[in-house]
């Protein structure tokens, strides 16, 4: 093949240009530390990269969820432990009150303390985390427990009873009232408020946080599971304790017909020491709730460990997939640089000479 000067020049330029391109790619890889700039550099890597990045960001989100769940549950656990202390103190007072050596002023002091503890119990059950009430099920924006006074009768001869509400519904409407309360009025109060009694729905109001691919953690404990439902719930028991400390030996409750309406009241006698068993039941209920929560907390902790492992793994996979091996990139860079410089110097020598130089 006949070679002309211009061919020599253009071939040299073509080669220099190719070497420069390789040099540029190598230096780009070295400076960005990434294997690819555009997806077409390596479609396989690019597609995998999106996948891994997705995993990593999903896992990040799960970690956030689990940490929010843990905070929520630890606040709940604190509240349950406080509540347990409160009930335990009530039980101590009841034991003290039941030993028969107390003067009436001692008893009334104890009663005042227990009254205070009842309010503390309500406040504890209204514990909130980041402005959200933890025991309220789905209703997190208003305090779930409140005290209310129900009254009836015309002015001058009104009868009123104090009750506790959960999410606006009365928890202990059928609970004990003092025998001094007018039984007719009490029956009327009962029947007036019968539509406003708390009953737990058929579905639990569980708040679930996603803690992994397809797994969820229930974070909340619902108030009714702590307080209990039915006639032996915490507030019924506390009401009995207060009556007993006030010197009463009996209380009245309504009797209902088959359709649930009150037809009258019955009087039941009780002793303070007999209430200790009821309080133990309340303590048991709180313990059970605490244990259940503890189990979920430890599973959240496991989830968090697993997620942080996953995070490391996927970050590593992501990095393996798209980040360059520095040693390799550096070697490639220096080799590309050498080749480029060599081709420059070779070209400089080759293209400057012609026959004219020797004539």
């Amino acid at each position: 093949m006949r070679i002309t000067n211009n061919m020599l020049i253009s071939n040299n330029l073509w080669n220099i240009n190719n070497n420069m391109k390789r040099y540029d790619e190598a230096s780009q890889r070295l400076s960005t530390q990434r294997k690819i700039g555009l997806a077409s550099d390596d479609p396989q890597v690019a597609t995998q990269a999106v996948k891994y990045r997705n995993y990593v960001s999903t896992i990040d989100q799960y970690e956030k969820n689990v940490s929010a769940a843990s905070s929520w549950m630890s606040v709940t656990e604190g509240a349950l432990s406080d509540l347990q202390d409160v009930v335990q103190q009530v039980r101590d007072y009841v034991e003290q009150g039941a030993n028969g050596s107390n003067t009436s002023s001692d008893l009334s002091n104890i009663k005042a303390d227990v009254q205070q503890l009842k309010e503390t119990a309500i406040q504890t059950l209204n514990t909130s985390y980041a402005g959200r009430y933890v025991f309220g099920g789905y209703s997190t924006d208003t305090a779930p427990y409140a005290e209310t006074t129900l009254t009836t009768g015309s002015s001058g001869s009104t009868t009123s009873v104090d009750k506790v509400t959960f999410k606006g519904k009365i928890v202990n409407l059928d609970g004990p009232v003092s025998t001094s309360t007018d039984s007719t009025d009490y029956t009327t109060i009962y029947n007036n408020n019968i539509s406003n009694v708390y009953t737990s729905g058929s579905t639990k109001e569980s708040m679930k946080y996603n803690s992994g691919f397809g797994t969820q953690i229930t974070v909340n404990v619902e108030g009714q599971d702590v307080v209990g439902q039915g006639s032996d719930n915490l507030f019924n028991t506390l009401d009995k304790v207060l009556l007993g400390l006030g010197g009463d030996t009996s209380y009245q409750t309504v009797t209902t017909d088959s359709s649930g309406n009150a037809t009258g009241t019955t009087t039941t006698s009780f002793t303070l020491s007999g209430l200790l068993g009821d309080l133990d039941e309340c303590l048991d209920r709180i313990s059970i709730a605490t244990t259940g929560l503890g189990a979920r907390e430890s599973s959240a902790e496991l989830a968090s460990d697993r997620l942080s492992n996953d995070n490391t793994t996927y970050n590593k996979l992501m990095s393996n997939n798209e980040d360059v091996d520095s040693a390799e990139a550096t070697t490639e860079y220096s080799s590309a640089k050498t080749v480029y410089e060599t081709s420059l110097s070779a070209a400089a020598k080759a293209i400057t000479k012609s026959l004219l130089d020797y004539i």
Partner: protein
Amino acid sequence: MNATFTGINIATRGLAVSQASISVTTNNQSNANTTGYSRQVVKQNAVGAAAVYAGSAILGNGVQVTSVDQIRDTRLDQRYWQENTRSGEWSSEASALTELESVLDDSSSSNTFSTTFNNFYSGLEDLENNPSDSSTRTSVRSYGEAICQYLNDSSSRLEDMRKDENSMVKTDVDEINSYARQIADLNAAISGGAGSGANINSLKDQRNVLIDKLSNLTGIIVTTTKTDSTTISINGTILVDGGDAKELTVIQDSSNDGMYKIQWKDTGNDFTPAGGELKAALDLRDSDGSNSTNKGIPYYINQLNKFAQTLAKAFNEGVLAGETSANASYSGHAGGETANNTTGIRFFSYNNTSSGDLKSEISSNGMDAAYEKITAANITLSSDIEDDVNNIAAASSSGGSSNSDNVSQLISLLKDSKMFNSGTPEDFYNSIISTLSTDSATAQRRESNASSTVKSIDDQRTSVSGVDSNEETANLTKYQSAYTACAKMVEVWNELLQKTIDMIDTTA
């Protein structure tokens, strides 16, 4: 008997031919860097005998220039034109696809589809964890808007690219017309010149340069006639025939978004390019990839539209790909209850249409027809969501501010591999990217193949036609010494004649 001055005549012819050769060499050397210049050589032959000497020996009568020819291999030209067409097509294709990648690509920058989509997903998770907080609702709305804006923005950038390709079509057509006209003019000049015996080599070189350029724009078939005129045809229709050139014209095609359509000006027949830059521009502008042609911008616009439609339909209605509202796997956003205790609110919509309007659209035209109105260019959140974040349906049923069962459902929906025929939203988008990047990588490879083929053919052409200064220098030396030698001959003859003249004694 030889004529007296034969020797001087022969030497003079030698001088003239050497001089002509030196001129051609000089011309070659001067044009060493002229684009398209083919080196020229002097064809010379011995002039036949003019006289017979002594009856048996024949004396030569010197030398003469018969022609100045250019050295050119037309077979290489033909191959160059073919390969140049391929190179033109793939280099346009490759550069456009690389640009497309920068619009849709996910792997390089931060403002990408995955980031946008992951943010939306995280926003929903936060909403699930805390549905009563209006700030989590607001961030779901913002992230939803970001998805819409991402799609709007990508779609409008693709439309812009499509318009760019369209104006490229017009430019290419104008260039083809201009080259055809110039080639025809040169043909006329060449035919005229050849008739009058003028040197037409440089005109032929110019014509070849123009044909080189034309071949980059579209595939052409070039035939050369005996009179050195050329005929150029594209897809069987003659563009240039001797001194005549036909013209192409563009009209706006209302059936194709007002894009240009190419026609032959005289017949009004549609013009289809056979490869080259023009075909690449048309493919990129029009091809939706349906009939196994190269996938153009409309293909990617369609994919984005399909993405927008499927996402909106699934998220709003809970209806996955291939499902109907009767057998939907999820209840969707419309099936959940808002913080305003309403149901049936659609999250995504188009042009800020309200959820109510979209709903009546669905009931009158059917769900598929209603969602076909959504494109990547017009997808927005419904005006209800834009106006009030409480219209985000987080709850599955009334029952409290912290009920977030519906959000939980929506999150599973976004992770459901049946949402698109090819998987989750990420999978679908990923498949767009992988198609694009594979196509782009292929185009780049083919471009580099084609351009090295063009380069190698061009090398061969240069090898045949190019000027080599070493060679010209050598020739110069050769012709120079020939010239000197002939001059010496004149001197010798002069002496001989002088001697003869001196022999005549004029004084006698």
